[in-house]
């Protein structure tokens, strides 16, 4: 504190002056004329009269006025702790503020979450911005996204920051910094910077230092956000009969030993409990009193850094999903000596799916429940019941892989391949030896080289109407589709114009065949998203028209990208979805790496030298002067009130 500051504050000692003046003034009441005064007997004023309310209020008002005067004198020397920008030469600044809204930012310190402190810091920075400064806001919760594009409208920036809410996403600092750099690098301001307000806990504590490269300098502010923290989370709670298997995970060096896992019903009543696993990750089983018990959620008792991930909804145990295969087992067995070659290929790919051989395509859609997709290897047409069931399966998001061969071309009367193909196919000679690698796109672009010579003398040929409706992934050298696909309902159908039988071609023996199966299974999985996924993972709904989603805190935004409806769950918990009127329940689970609170290293240049400071002088003289004026007005009002009271007498 400087001498001037001390001197100014010493004026505050004059607060006793009003008291003394008050005492002196109070001893002599105001004189009033009264003709019969000689009939009035003099009496000493009573002590209680000395402290009348109005007198005390006047005294307090004057004392406060003196204090404020002293404060006004010392104002230039009053500082408070807050973030502020530094400028070089007073030029305007382009600033991208990266606010981390990942789950690790929900850790509390001093009763306030890291996210709240980061947002407050962003507002403090914005408070030191001036007209002409450009501000952008980027969120670092995965996937990184722009909350506000660069703007000089500081009011809009303030509104954007006020509207930020925490999420349970993973952290994507690199993506956020890259986004921020792109937002400010093209701005006309010479002085550009990126301010990162994050705990840097992105699960890569041994990763490269953040902000060490790039054309725009990075300032990682608020180092107190990077304090140590310990957290455990419930990753899943799957019910099977009278048991609930609860997965528990903790950050590095942290265990849930000594804590308990409780399964509750919707009203919070405990149905069963078990000790949490002692390791960093593990699973515990909670026994329910009966198989009919309505278990709603599992809860990890005890406290840790993030409370929101200590609860997980209980879901029926999910299977891995199955692929139905309809193939002529008799013929295939002759060639392979075992299961059909497509089944063997699926097993060899280790795609973590169950392969379910089906003798014939079922007549009811319900029989395909649990199947991600169905492979039809050279089917001899489909009956009307089968076609109806297949249509329902596709509408519900099912994926079909149809291999066309001689049986498909020789479908009996009344059987057809609708709705997969509108017209019949022909099976005939081919002059083309194989696929054209140049025509290959998507997942088959690279392995298509193995399709150059397939050794096929015959192939299936699609009707022109069907060929034009399909999107070719690989074409024959003569331009006819070899592998093609098309969306149908919410599902998808892939068509291969060769059967998988090794008798007809070498297709099943080529690496590209495995690539086709892998890409098809991947598409099937995308169409039938699992009930539980990591928070922040995009849920896609191809072919869906009307999707509504309600999360733990109410409805969430539904977006559409390239014609596909997408929903991103921002918080851990249960989501109720309505997809074209069909209700679904999905769960967003915590991301394991968000339990790791170890901060990622920061480059030495990110200390903010020359870009900002933590302590800043704040000129509050205006507010103090206003308060002083208010006090003066209050004193005038008090005096007027007192005078009116006397005059009324």
């Amino acid at each position, binding site marked *: 504190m400087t001498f001037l500051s001390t001197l100014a504050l010493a004026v505050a000692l004059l607060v006793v002056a009003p008291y003394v003046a008050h005492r002196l003034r109070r001893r002599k009441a105001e*004189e009033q*004329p*009264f003709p*019969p*005064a*000689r*009939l*009035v*007997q003099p009496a000493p004023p009573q002590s209680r009269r000395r402290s009348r309310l109005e007198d005390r209020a006047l005294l307090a008002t004057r004392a406060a006025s003196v204090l404020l005067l002293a404060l006004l004198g010392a104002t230039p020397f009053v500082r408070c702790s807050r973030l502020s920008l530094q400028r070089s030469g007073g030029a305007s600044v382009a600033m991208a503020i990266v606010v981390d809204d990942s789950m690790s930012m929900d850790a509390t310190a001093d009763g306030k979450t890291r996210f709240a402190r980061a947002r407050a810091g962003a507002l403090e920075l914005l408070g030191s911005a001036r007209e002409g400064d450009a501000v952008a806001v980027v969120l670092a919760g995965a996937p990184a996204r722009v909350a506000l594009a660069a703007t000089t409208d500081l009011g809009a920036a303030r509104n954007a920051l006020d509207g930020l809410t925490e999420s349970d996403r993973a952290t994507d600092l690199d993506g956020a910094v890259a986004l921020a750099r792109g937002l400010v690098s093209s701005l006309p301001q010479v002085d550009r910077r990126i301010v990162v307000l994050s705990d840097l806990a992105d699960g890569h504590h041994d990763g490269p230092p953040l902000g060490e490269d790039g054309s725009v300098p990075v300032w990682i502010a608020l180092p107190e956000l990077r304090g140590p923290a310990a957290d455990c989370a419930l990753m899943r709670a799957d019910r099977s009969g009278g048991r609930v298997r609860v997965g528990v995970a903790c950050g590095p060096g942290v265990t849930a030993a000594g804590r308990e896992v409780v399964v509750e019903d919707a009203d919070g009543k405990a149905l069963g409990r078990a000790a949490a696993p002692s390791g960093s990750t593990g699973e515990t089983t909670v026994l329910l009193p009966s198989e009919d018990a309505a278990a709603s959620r599992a809860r990890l008792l005890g406290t840790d850094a993030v409370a929101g991930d200590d609860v997980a909804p209980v879901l029926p145990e999910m299977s891995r999903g199955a692929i139905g295969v309809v193939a002529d087992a008799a013929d295939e067995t002759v060639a392979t000596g075992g299961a059909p070659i497509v089944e063997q290929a699926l097993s060899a790919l280790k795609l973590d799916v169950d392969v379910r051989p089906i003798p014939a395509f079922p007549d009811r859609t319900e029989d395909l429940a649990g199947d991600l997709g169905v492979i039809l290897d050279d089917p001899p047409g489909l009956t009307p019941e089968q076609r109806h069931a297949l249509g329902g399966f596709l509408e519900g998001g099912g994926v079909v892989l149809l291999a066309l061969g001689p049986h498909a071309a020789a479908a009996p009367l009344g059987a057809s391949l609708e709705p997969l193909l509108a017209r019949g196919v022909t099976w005939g000679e081919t002059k083309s030896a194989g696929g054209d690698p140049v025509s290959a796109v998507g997942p088959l672009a690279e392995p298509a080289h193995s399709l150059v010579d397939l050794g096929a003398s015959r192939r299936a040929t699609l009707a022109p109407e069907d060929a034009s409706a399909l999107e070719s992934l690989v074409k024959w050298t003569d331009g006819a589709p070899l592998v093609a696909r098309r969306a149908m309902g919410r599902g998808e159908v892939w068509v291969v114009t060769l059967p998988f039988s090794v008798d007809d071609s070498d297709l099943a023996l080529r690496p590209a065949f495995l690539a086709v199966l892998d890409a098809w299974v991947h598409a099937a999985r995308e169409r039938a998203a699992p009930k539980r996924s990591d928070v922040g993972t995009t849920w896609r709904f191809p072919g869906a028209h009307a999707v509504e989603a309600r999360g733990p805190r109410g409805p969430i935004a539904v977006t559409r990208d390239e014609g596909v409806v997408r929903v991103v769950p921002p918080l851990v918990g249960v989501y109720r979805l309505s997809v074209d009127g069909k209700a679904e329940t999905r769960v967003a689970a915590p991301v394991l790496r968000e339990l790791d609170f170890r901060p990622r290293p920061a480059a030495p240049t990110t200390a903010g030298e020359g870009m900002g400071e933590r302590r800043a002088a704040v000129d509050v003289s205006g507010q103090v002067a206003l308060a002083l004026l208010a006090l003066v007005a209050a004193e005038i009002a008090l005096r007027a009130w007192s005078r009116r009271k006397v005059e*009324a007498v």
Partner: protein
Amino acid sequence: MSAPLPIRRAIDWGELAPLKLRARQVAEGVYAGMHRSNKRGAGVEFGGYREYVPGDDLRWLDRRSLLRHDRLVVRQFETETDRALCLLVDASASMGFRSKGAPGAKLAFAAVIAAALARVALASGDPVSLTFLGGGARTAHVPRSAGRDQFERIVAVLEAVEPGGDARVDHVVLDRALQALARATRRGAIVVFLSDLVDLPDDAAERVAAIAATGRVVSIVQTLDPAEVAFPFEGTVRLRALEGGAVVETDAETTRDRYLAALASLTGTWEKAAVRRGGRFSRAISTDDLVSVVRAIVESVR
């Protein structure tokens, strides 16, 4: 040294102005001719007999009664009685006081009463005179006279009067007023004294009441301000008398009862003195209805 008086030199008429109009309104509200009076001079009405007492004028000895009944009686006539109205208005400094809730100063209130009484008397043909106790430099005495012009003169003098003088300290003020009153009134005259009575010398009550002993009817009307009756102060107050220079600092709550008792005692002293000499005493607060006050005075002196 006492501070200069905050009272204005002119009368604070307040809601009581204009005097002439107010006095007429009040007088009209009072039953004209309520008091008994006859025309002066001969042709008078016989007033009855009474026993002769030594000193009676022998002209009125009834000789017939002496001859027939051997008794000494004298005849009485109304024409003997002088029913002139003498108004004595206190115009000392204290009468200039007016509190917040009063319609006007005490002197203004007394002036309206005096003018209304004069109007009533003059309407009955009685002569009226006006004398002041204290008052400023422009204070004048109105000699006894009757007729319409007399009312105009009385009103003009009342409008011009200014409160002033300290009867508490300067005893000459009271002496001068009583001497002027003695000169202006005869036996049987009605003397109405309008004053707050609070700042007069201690012997003033006896001296004023003594006027009644000389065959005059004295009516003392104590005119007070509502604040003087209620003592509405709160907390510590510093009160200054308008006459005598007394300054008192006191606690209002603890002193109120004692003040009211002292005021009642003062009033009692004046009332006893008046009643003992056959006079009348009444109190009027400046918020009272003027018609009622004037009517009460008129009825008290019938």
